[in-house]
């Protein structure tokens, strides 16, 4: 191999390790050199300037190694200067604010920043897993699946391997501490949303704002300007960056414009809703008081202008992942924006015109540009070529990069002449350099466009995907529409802004577009896969973050994965946190070449949100902790809290669970004491959360007849009835007591859990199915406070409070009607409704009072009950007593049980039709061996039964027989649904569902509860444990 060498223009800089010297040039760049900022990287103290990113500061400090690759743990350096960065993922901040996988190229530098490299052990420079590289030929695409999932599948071996693989191929780790910062959410509406604040976006926002409508401009970087800040072009004679600053100021002064810098539009959703995340405080060491770290924006725009720019694509040649191989546009940006010369001797390899500008700018910045290696036989447009020649820089037409030389970083580039078909001709030559600036052309950033559901189309002339016809109300402008030159960006942005404003209803203003010099360009050459002569070692990486090389894609093709979607999943191409921003084009090109088709025919993958990673904290926003969901409190909530109850959640409600008599009284002791008190004398329970639906109208009884399985037309006014509803498929939906308050007026109650669902159910049937029924239904759950007063002393106590005759004759079981609390007592009267219904099985009444009187009525009853030692009782005692009585509740109404299963089949009226009647009669719904409701007691009289525990035959084997040997699993004949302890019987009790259970009373079966480590023999009994004749509630 001969050395590529031209006669030196000036003393040639040596290729010394960059670490030994600062890389910041003496002046220039858009940084504030008066503001020096301190930061650390892997514990080493360094400094940078205001305006730096972490990446530019690291480069200025000569740091060339920033991370290890995902699979092979290869050394990687900073590759880009934007959101596409595949390599420089760092862990930012310490303690609870630690955040992994941040892109150093997008992290603004601040004083006190702490960053660490990731995916290396024990240190970045000496990473033991880099040995993976030595066995790399043995870790091809799909390796993990083939090796560990194939033969080893269904064995414990895979589980062991998986653990090690996941550790080896790990991303950065975060913290387990709670995030101390706040996150905010905002919603905005506008006529025109402009996404991207480069030249196109600024021109679009300016034009759209002139129409007078509301305009929002978002940009993911620290400031507006985009490539204007990274390049040295002029607009209307003004320096690009100055023009951008002036535009920003002019737009900020307009009342109809909202500017959102540091804001990434990450998702384009239906009906022009765009999700954005604003990094309010990420540029500070910690957020200022009362300011969030990030803010999630939901922006609904009438029209959208996508000005999202383009991402430069790399070239695939051997060892192109060495630190020092960088995107040409980034190399130029580091010089122009940050005053950082990333190397001393630079070779540029390109398939397009744009990289020539890097040659000019780096030459001006004082770097030695060794040569421009242009893969096109004719090279760039003449004025660009002339500018390069003027500087004495060589251009090699029709040459391609073949291999980056060096071990720890780039030391040179081997190149090769290629013919018209891309085949190598002649011998390799080498150029010494410490930076290889590569350009595979610019690919429009189509992520948001693609998320609208629209399709990208391949453009042969521009050698990139362009946006196809829009599916939502959006248009692309500038580089993201494949119009890459500044003049095209300004013109396109201006036109898009005017068009969007007009479509959103604004009048077209007279406004001239900003102008820049027209710069003609020669077309790029569609080659990304560079030749790899035999005996040239090294992988040609396509996806740097996921370590996917050309050979992996070719292997996938040989194995039949030809669809790009399959290719992606098999090789992990484009599956990293960068979502293939710098790997898709080369990857598709390699696949197209392998298939022998045009790249446009391989298609492109569908992009899905988010465009770049979004912190979960931002998505959660302020809805964390107590604010995660609203809390519903009953009118007596404050009384319960003052009484020191323990709580239990019931949907969004909180309900008293127990009222401990003294500190230290446990759950069991408390609910047993409460149960005994109710059954022995008197108790009071808050039952407000039960759903209450007021149903009125001439057809109300007919409507209930259709909803419930039992009949309602004969129910007299002043009486309540227990009802059961089925779903259309014949399974039980819900139950409750419904009372007839008047001829056309009913009050329905539902279970707490189903209150919302039943209300919607009723509305559906009234509005959609039977709109002819003259019925209105209203939820009144929160309008009425409800309390149950239960126990043998209930009548005696209540008689001192309400104005009704409570005798059995005047107010029998299931009676209902209005009453007044403390009638005639000035200032104390409370209107109420009284129901004689009982969930506990005791003599019991339920009192409903308007919600605002809830606490007063409750306290009145507690006072009236004092002579009877009244106790408040909570959900545990209530549930325990309903189990003692065999009443079904949520665990039994589990969406799989029929009325017959629950022993309520007799309720099904045969005289009328109702919802679910037909499908409830299907053969499988009436099979005699279905699981039926039973009572269960432990044979030993003491072992507690476990809710959800399995029920098996008494002589069932302890374990399933070997399945391989034809053994069968242990047959499950039922399960335990609800468990309690009956103080009256003095042993544990439970309800359960058992196959053919009603015919198996007194049979002994086994309970297996491996979750709680319990196992016992249980006896099947009738599901009523206390007062089976119901004498108490009728008493």
């Amino acid at each position, binding site marked *: 191999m001969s050395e590529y060498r031209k006669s030196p223009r000036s003393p040639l800089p040596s290729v010394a390790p960059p670490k030994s010297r600062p890389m910041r040039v003496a002046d220039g760049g858009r940084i504030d050199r008066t503001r020096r900022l301190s930061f650390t990287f892997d514990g080493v103290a360094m400094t940078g300037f205001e305006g730096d990113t972490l990446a530019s500061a690291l480069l200025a400090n000569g740091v060339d190694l920033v991370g290890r690759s995902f699979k092979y743990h290869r050394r990687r350096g900073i590759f880009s200067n934007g959101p596409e960065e595949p390599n420089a993922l760092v862990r930012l901040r310490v303690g609870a604010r630690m955040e992994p996988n941040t892109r150093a190229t997008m992290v603004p530098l601040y004083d006190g920043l702490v960053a660490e490299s990731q995916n290396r052990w024990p240190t970045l420079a000496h990473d033991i897993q880099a040995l993976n590289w030595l066995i790399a030929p043995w870790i091809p695409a799909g390796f993990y699946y083939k090796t560990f999932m194939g033969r080893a599948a269904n064995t414990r071996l895979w589980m062991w391997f998986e653990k090690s693989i996941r550790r080896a191929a790990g991303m950065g780790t975060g913290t387990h501490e709670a995030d101390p910062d706040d996150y905010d959410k905002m919603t905005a509406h506008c006529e025109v949303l402009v996404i991207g604040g480069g030249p196109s976006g600024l021109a679009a926002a300016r034009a759209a704002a002139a129409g007078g409508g509301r305009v929002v401009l978002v940009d993911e970087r620290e400031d507006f300007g985009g490539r204007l800040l990274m390049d040295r072009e002029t607009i209307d004679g003004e320096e690009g960056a100055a023009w951008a600053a002036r535009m920003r100021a002019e737009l900020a002064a307009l009342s109809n414009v909202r500017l959102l810098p540091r804001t990434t539009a990450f998702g384009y*959703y239906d009906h022009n809703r765009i999700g954005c995340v604003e990094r309010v405080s990420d540029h500070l060491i910690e957020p200022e008081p009362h300011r969030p770290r990030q803010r999630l924006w939901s922006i609904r725009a009438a029209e959208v202008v996508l000005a999202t720019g383009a991402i430069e694509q790399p070239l695939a040649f051997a060892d192109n992942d060495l630190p020092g191989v960088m995107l040409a546009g980034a190399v130029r940006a580091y010089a122009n924006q940050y005053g950082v010369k990333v190397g001393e001797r630079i070779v540029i390899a390109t398939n397009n015109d744009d990289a020539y500008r890097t040659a000019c700018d780096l030459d001006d910045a004082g770097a030695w540009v060794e040569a421009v290696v242009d893969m096109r036989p004719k090279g760039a447009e003449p004025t660009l070529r002339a500018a390069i020649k003027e500087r004495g820089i060589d251009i090699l037409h029709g040459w391609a990069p073949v291999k980056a030389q060096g071990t720890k970083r780039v030391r040179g580039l081997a190149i090769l002449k290629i013919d018209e078909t891309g085949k190598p001709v002649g011998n390799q030559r080498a150029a010494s350099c410490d930076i290889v600036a590569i350009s595979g052309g610019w690919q429009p950033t189509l992520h948001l466009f693609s998320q609208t559901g629209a399709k990208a189309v391949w453009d042969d002339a521009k050698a990139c995907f362009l946006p196809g016809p829009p599916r939502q109300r959006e248009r692309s402008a500038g580089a993201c529409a494949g119009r890459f030159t500044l003049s095209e960006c300004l013109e396109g942005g201006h036109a898009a802004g005017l068009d969007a404003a007009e479509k959103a209803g604004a009048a077209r203003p007279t406004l001239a577009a900003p102008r820049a010099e027209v710069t003609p360009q020669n077309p790029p050459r569609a080659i990304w896969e560079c030749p790899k002569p035999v005996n040239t070692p090294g992988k040609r990486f396509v996806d740097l973050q996921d370590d996917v090389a050309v050979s992996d894609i070719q292997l996938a093709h040989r194995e039949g994965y030809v669809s790009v979607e399959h290719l992606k999943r098999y090789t992990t191409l484009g599956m990293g946190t960068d979502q293939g921003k710098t790997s898709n084009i080369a990857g598709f090109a390699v696949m197209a070449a392998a298939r022998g088709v045009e790249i446009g025919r391989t298609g492109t993958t569908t992009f899905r949100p988010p465009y770049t990673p979004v912190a979960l904290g931002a998505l959660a926003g302020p809805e964390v902790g107590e604010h995660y969901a609203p809390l519903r409190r009953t009118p007596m909530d404050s009384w319960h809290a003052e009484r020191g109850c323990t709580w239990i959640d019931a949907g969004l409600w909180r309900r008293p669970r127990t009222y401990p008599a003294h500190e230290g009284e446990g759950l069991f002791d408390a609910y047993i004491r409460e149960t005994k008190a109710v059954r022995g004398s008197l108790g009071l329970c808050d039952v407000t959360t039960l759903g209450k639906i007021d149903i009125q109208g001439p057809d109300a009884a007919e409507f209930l007849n259709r909803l419930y399985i039992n009949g309602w037309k004969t129910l007299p006014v002043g009486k309540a009835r227990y009802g059961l509803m089925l779903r259309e*498929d014949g399974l039980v939906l819900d139950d409750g007591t419904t009372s007839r308050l008047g001829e056309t007026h009913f009050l329905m109650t539902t279970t707490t859990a189903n209150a919302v669902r039943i209300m*919607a159910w009723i509305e*559906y049937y009234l509005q959609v199915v039977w709109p002819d029924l003259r019925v209105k239904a209203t939820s009144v759950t929160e309008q009425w406070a409800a309390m149950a007063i239960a126990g043998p002393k209930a009548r005696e106590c209540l008689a001192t409070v309400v104005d009704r005759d409570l005798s059995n004759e005047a107010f029998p079981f299931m009676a209902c009607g209005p009453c007044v609390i403390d009638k005639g007592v000035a200032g104390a009267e409370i209107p109420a409704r009284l129901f004689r219904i009982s969930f506990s099985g005791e003599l019991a009444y339920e009192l409903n009072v308007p919600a605002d009187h809830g606490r007063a009525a409750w306290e009145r009853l507690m006072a009236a009950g004092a002579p009877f030692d009244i106790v408040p009782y909570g959900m545990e005692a209530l549930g325990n007593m309903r189990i003692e009585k065999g009443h079904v509740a949520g665990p039994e109404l589990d969406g799989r049980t029929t009325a017959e299963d629950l022993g309520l089949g007799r309720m099904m009226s045969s005289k009328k*039709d109702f919802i679910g009647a*037909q499908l409830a009669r299907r053969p499988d719904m009436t099979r005699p061996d279905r699981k039926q409701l039973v009572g269960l007691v432990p044979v030993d009289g003491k072992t507690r039964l476990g809710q959800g525990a399995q029920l098996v035959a008494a002589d069932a084997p302890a374990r399933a027989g070997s399945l391989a040997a034809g053994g069968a699993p242990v047959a499950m004949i039922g399960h335990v649904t609800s468990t309690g302890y009956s103080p009256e019987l003095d042993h544990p009790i439970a309800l359960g569902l058992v196959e053919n259970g009603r015919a198996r009373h007194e049979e002994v079966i086994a309970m297996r509860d491996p979750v709680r480590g319990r196992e016992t023999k249980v006896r099947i009994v009738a599901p009523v444990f206390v007062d089976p004749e119901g004498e108490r509630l009728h008493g």
Partner: protein
Amino acid sequence: MFRIECPWCGTRDMVEFTYVGDGTLTRPALGARTGHFEHVYLRANPKGTHVELWHHVAGCRQHVAVKRDTLTHEILATGGPGEVTAARDDVPKGAAKGETGGMA
């Protein structure tokens, strides 16, 4: 997230609604012995125009028939239950206005 034009409340965000189901179904009449299985279990899964029911739970609590392109999520028309036809043609938004009206 869709924006749905409720005939009673105006255009609202999808978060105010819950999806109910296929709006082209007719429940078998009371007393009918057949049709229940089909009504409960059998659903078309059309690609393109479809009429579905949405319940404006955080608004007027009315059911709204929504004619939607299941492919593009474009909403072509809205109205009261039964007021929007399930014709499989693409009706431009403007032309469909006539289908939007109050419930009788």
